[in-house]
């Protein structure tokens, strides 16, 4: 067995994984292929060759709709057999996180989800992921014959190469139909979008008393041309902001120039999302709040006093 297969239900993620995959494939001296499942699998195949796949395994089956992890795991196991692959890279989306460990168990293989870095050392694939709630980063090697790695979906940008070519290989799958019924799909409300790309990120936490008090925060956000994000309780419990505005381990990760935390305690599951910010500023009325331990600058005080003063000062500096 010697080959790398890439799979993600998101095309952009699959192409990003192929982009990284071609580097790994050349270092590990393995062929790189892609698994494409579903109706238009064939139409998507050609494009993947421009990102490094040399084989595209395409398959469709009524059993693939709706998504059921066990069925997708069975499909990918069969494709790995066809490809004679020992490594599979899967996009660590919500779907990918349900699928990758199930596939790994089918293969009696080791698995790493939410990988944040892939590299090769001594001919081994080294995978990094966060551990201890985000306190640490651990580097791992999977030692089973086959390896399942689910990679953060936006980790690698898709970059086409020149002169890629490959072969389309249809695979007929033996699958059992899903037993799960999908009754409804309710699209989520979309907030302000790409927090990942914010230059200035202002986040609020449970220090804010009321949704109405967002009117106090927004002028501050505007004064520095920032984006507004939040901790998990604000979006997922109180629904004051949309869920795509939540920052942290289970939300968005961002590397802004400035991260401003307002009324946030600084628990690791949140702060891990902004660890790479250039400068961190915190406002909290508890001088022992853990957020001050990871801040460059902090102001101990009631946010209802501090925020208006800070806004005024910034507005006067920036003449708005």
């Amino acid at each position, binding site marked *: 067995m010697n080959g790398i297969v890439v799979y993600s239900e998101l095309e952009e993620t699959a192409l990003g994984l192929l982009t990284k995959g071609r580097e790994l494939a050349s270092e590990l001296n393995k062929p790189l292929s892609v698994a494409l499942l579903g109706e238009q699998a064939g139409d998507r195949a050609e494009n993947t060759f421009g990102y490094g796949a040399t084989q595209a395994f395409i398959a469709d089956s009524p059993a693939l709709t709706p998504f059921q992890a066990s069925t997708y795991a069975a499909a990918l196991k069969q494709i790995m057999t066809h490809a004679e692959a020992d490594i599979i890279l899967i996009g660590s989306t919500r779907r990918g996180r349900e699928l990758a460990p199930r596939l790994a*168990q089918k293969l009696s293989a080791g698995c790493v989800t939410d990988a944040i870095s892939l590299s090769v050392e001594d001919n081994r694939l080294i995978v990094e992921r966060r551990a201890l709630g985000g306190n640490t980063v651990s580097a791992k090697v999977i030692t089973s014959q086959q390896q399942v790695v689910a990679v953060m979906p936006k980790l690698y940008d898709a970059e086409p190469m020149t002169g890629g070519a490959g072969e389309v290989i249809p695979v007929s799958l033996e699958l059992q139909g899903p037993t799960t019924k999908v009754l409804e799909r309710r699209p989520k409300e979309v907030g302000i979008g790409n927090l990942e790309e914010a230059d200035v990120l202002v986040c609020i936490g449970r220090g804010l008393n009321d949704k109405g008090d967002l009117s106090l925060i927004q002028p501050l956000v505007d004064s520095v041309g920032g984006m507004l994000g939040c901790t998990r309780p604000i979006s997922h419990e109180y629904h004051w902001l949309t869920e795509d505005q939540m920052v942290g381990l289970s939300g968005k990760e961002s590397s802004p120039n400035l991260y401003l935390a307002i009324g946030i305690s600084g628990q690791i599951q949140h702060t891990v999302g902004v660890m790479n910010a250039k400068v961190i500023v915190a406002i909290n009325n508890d001088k022992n709040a853990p957020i001050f331990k990871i801040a460059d600058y902090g102001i101990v005080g009631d946010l209802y006093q501090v925020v208006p003063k800070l806004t005024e000062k910034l507005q006067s500096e920036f003449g708005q």
Partner: protein
Amino acid sequence: MNIIVCMKQVIDLEQIRIKPNTREPVTKGLPLLFGDFEKCALEEAVRIQEKHGGKVTALAVGSPKLKDTIKEALAIGADEAIILTDPMFNDSDAMGSARVIAKAIHKIGEYDLILLGDSSADEYSGEIPPRIAELLDLPQVGFARELEILEGNDQGTNTKTIRAVRDLEDALEVVELDLPAVVGVTSELNTPRLAPLSAILKAGRKPLNEWGPEDIGITADEVGANASVVEVLSNLAPVQDRKEIIYEDVEEGVAEVVKALLQEGVLTQ
């Protein structure tokens, strides 16, 4: 409805210290707690039981400290607990832990639903629910944030299905599947109750069983450090070099912080 709730005790992540010179985490001796996700799983199991009857069994693999930790689960409402603390299970990878849990579930035998936290608070890997579902050949739903049990009757036989709202990135997906199934839940599911003092006192009288490797029929080649197929090369805190300049006077703080931000060049005029 017989429900098994799988729970993992994790160290209090708030209390982890990092050795400044080596960046190693210091985790020894820290208190062990159940994570928010598993507490929600347990709370949901108790609520389902209140409505549909049956039994709630808490199941946990971990260090001998579980004897204490698990009391919280019994106080909140589990009828019975099973803990697996044998040293043979130490340093298992996710596959090893999943095998122990699946074998214990198999031994329990009668169940309609397996509930657990979608991911643990410490590793957040989400590997256990899909792995035990695979080992038990059951369907799974992850990221469940709403659950409803539907009991019906199909030509004389009782049917049990579960309706779950699965939390995807851009949508909520409402799915329905026949039980038994494995369901991984998130903290949006409910607000777990705090056990009243009387329940904490009574928890000590509920059945607490300890099972070892022989009880569940597992051997050292399936579990523990030797069976692990994921080698950890290092586990270190990323270097964080923060200034930690904290102002306790608001007026001064506001003035100094704005000055500093302009100097740092992180705000552009």
